[in-house]
């Protein structure tokens, strides 16, 4: 059975069906991310002074990932225009760069950035003092409850030079890196210990929700583009215009993913 309007435009909309379909899907995506951005604004505006973490994310890594996504966006559109000019070899090269960019983004996110957060801690002391830093040995997901359960009496803590609640920390590029002298902290003196995980604070809860959801979109878009680049490219020989349309639709999704990141980056990393 032939699906109508996969190549020719429908007379009423002036679009082939998949194109209208992807725009309707992107409209629903706008509402999804819009709801989460609204939550972010609500949490940020509603937070007590000095409780909203700032300067805890790695700006060079975030900048790198932004450049990677921007590059992938331009290679997608250049690949599509290469197909329009009947240059399949150039399309293949451009989309190969896109796929590499998608992979690089996910590797940086999942293997560098997230693990860095899972080994970075905040400790709330019984005397009201608070510090961020690293625990010797860089353990993952340690909490005060786990310390008690494992009967660990003390930890060796390498505090950061600044705590985010102090004014200087927000604009200190090295806030997450520079350390004061290591110190021994007794478990009995710890009121709460948490890595920078969603349970740490509303900031990290919304940060992980939004960036992980965005990461899933990168993964999904990357898989579709890779499929069209690889096994799906057979269609180019039998029905080239339909193939171009598929590439265009996947490209529109990819640009949307880039567009979301353009807002995520300043909101989480810089503000």
């Amino acid at each position: 059975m032939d699906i109508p309007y996969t190549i020719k435009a429908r007379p009423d909309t002036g679009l082939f069906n998949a194109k209208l379909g992807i725009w309707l899907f992107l409209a629903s995506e706008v509402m999804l991310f819009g709801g989460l951005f609204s939550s972010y604004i609500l949490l940020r505006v509603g937070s007590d002074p000095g409780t909203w973490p700032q300067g805890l994310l790695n700006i060079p890594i975030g900048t790198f990932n932004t450049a990677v996504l921007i590059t992938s966006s331009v290679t997608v559109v250049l690949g599509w225009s290469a197909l329009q000019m009947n240059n399949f070899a150039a399309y293949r090269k451009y989309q190969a760069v896109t796929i590499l960019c998608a992979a690089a983004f996910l590797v940086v996110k999942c293997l560098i950035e997230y693990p860095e957060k899972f080994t970075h801690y905040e400790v709330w002391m019984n005397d009201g003092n608070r510090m961020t830093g690293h625990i010797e040995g860089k353990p993952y997901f340690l909490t005060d409850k786990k310390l008690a359960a494992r009967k660990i009496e003390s930890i060796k803590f390498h505090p950061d030079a600044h705590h985010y609640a102090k004014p200087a920390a927000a604009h200190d590029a090295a806030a997450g890196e520079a350390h004061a002298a290591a110190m021994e902290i007794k478990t009995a003196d710890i009121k709460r210990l948490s890595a920078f995980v969603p349970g740490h604070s509303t900031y990290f809860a919304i940060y992980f929700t939004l960036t992980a959801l965005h990461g899933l979109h990168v993964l999904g878009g990357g898989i579709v583009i890779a499929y069209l680049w690889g096994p799906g490219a057979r269609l180019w020989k039998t029905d080239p215009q339909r193939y171009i349309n598929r590439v265009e639709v996947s490209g529109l999704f990819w640009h949307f993913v880039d567009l979301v990141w353009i807002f995520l980056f300043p909101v989480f990393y810089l503000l």
Partner: protein
Amino acid sequence: MSDTHSFESIKKHRNVYIAVFVGLLIGTALTVGMYYVHFSQLWKTITIALIIATIKASLVAAFFMHLSNERRAIYSTLLVTAFFLVAMMYLFIHARTDVPLGTEFRATKQVPHAPAPADK
């Protein structure tokens, strides 16, 4: 992406894509550079950062997604989306000043709109 493209117009468009790409990189550099400028008030930082982000997003939407030259059906879809997005964001943000009676905030122990004690 309009459906009819001549070879020449596609070639011309490719130069535009490269120019937009450079513009996006410059925008990113400006955003990061702004982080290191110490503005006296936070709202200034937020406003400038969001203006740059909006310009970058508009470039992507207008040129990479070809919204600068699209069909009416897509504009109509986006107009409806924009309306509902603004309405939803308003509801979310409005919720901050319209909490249910007796809501207690853990951090401040503040009880907004607490019912007045009954007269005896």
